[in-house]
């Protein structure tokens, strides 16, 4: 069976939205990590302070089909009513 681990990196506060979408698409669970990012658009700095945006990382383990469904759902939700963007990275799992 093709198993994958999905890492969704979103701005702080958006993790619940990802999880809601994932649950609708058939994910059985998710784990949320707190992180800080290095967003290069802010890397120039504001008054020589470097801005490190806070992020949340949502980890979901699922099969390829479920991941595809989750990603479609997340895109649907984020395209319409979200001010901020996020990225999804998929890692092969054994």
């Amino acid at each position, binding site marked *: 069976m093709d198993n*994958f*681990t999905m*890492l*969704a*990196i*979103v701005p702080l506060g958006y993790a619940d939205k990802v*999880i809601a979408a994932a*649950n609708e698409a058939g*994910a*059985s*669970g*998710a*784990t*949320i*990590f*707190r*992180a*800080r*990012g*290095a967003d*290069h658009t802010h*890397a120039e700095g504001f008054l020589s302070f*470097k801005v*490190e945006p806070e*992020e949340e*990382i949502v*980890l979901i*383990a699922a099969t390829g089909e479920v*991941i*595809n469904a989750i*990603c*479609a759902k*997340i*895109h649907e939700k*984020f*395209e319409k009513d*979200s001010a901020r*963007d*996020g*990225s*999804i*990275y*998929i*890692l*092969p*799992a*054994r």
Partner: protein
Amino acid sequence: MARQELTAEMGLSLLVVVVNRGKGSKVLNFACEKGANDASCLFGTGTVNSRMLQMLEMNDVDKEVILIVVPTARETEILNQLNMKFHFERKNHGIAFTVPLAGIMKMKRDTSVRWSHTGESQHTQGDYVALLTIVDKGKAASVVQISQTAGYFGGTIIRARGSAGKLNVVLDMIVEPEKEAVLMVVEGARANHLAALLKQQLHLDQPNRGILIQMGVSQTMGLFQTDQHEG
């Protein structure tokens, strides 16, 4: 170096760097300078396999885990540059490893996942395997203990919170259980044994006990497995 848009066709890798706390921002800035598009930093706790320090209860070392997405073609170059700056070849200076990505998506722009074929085909290569065990809070120490008593090495513990598919609603409040994730890098040949051991001891085959993920690692740096040390 010029920052370019990442596409699945070029083959992408996730570069994971574990360093002592305080160095995380340096690694993040370094990654940005080298043209990384996406980098994030997590707080973790390392474990040192030293009986002396264990007795003094000083065996917890604060760590930072940095995730950087890099094109596979440039991963060796970036690893070498990181090594020149942060000296992973020396003991206790941190570790770095790469995991090939199978797919990528931008939430607002893409309509579907762009699967990378190079990533998928690569995932059996490599001598090492990254084991990610996610368990309830408080059990991470026993995961590390199980692996250390069985002759494996420590790992990095990262705090997290879980969200089960069925939400536990208690008095109209949604309970989000606290979790801990343990990241370990072990030799590929022994990984299955450790996975079986953890599965048996932590009853991972039963629901709601935790999950275990194995990922093939393509390149590593800074691992000192033979010397009873992990970076």
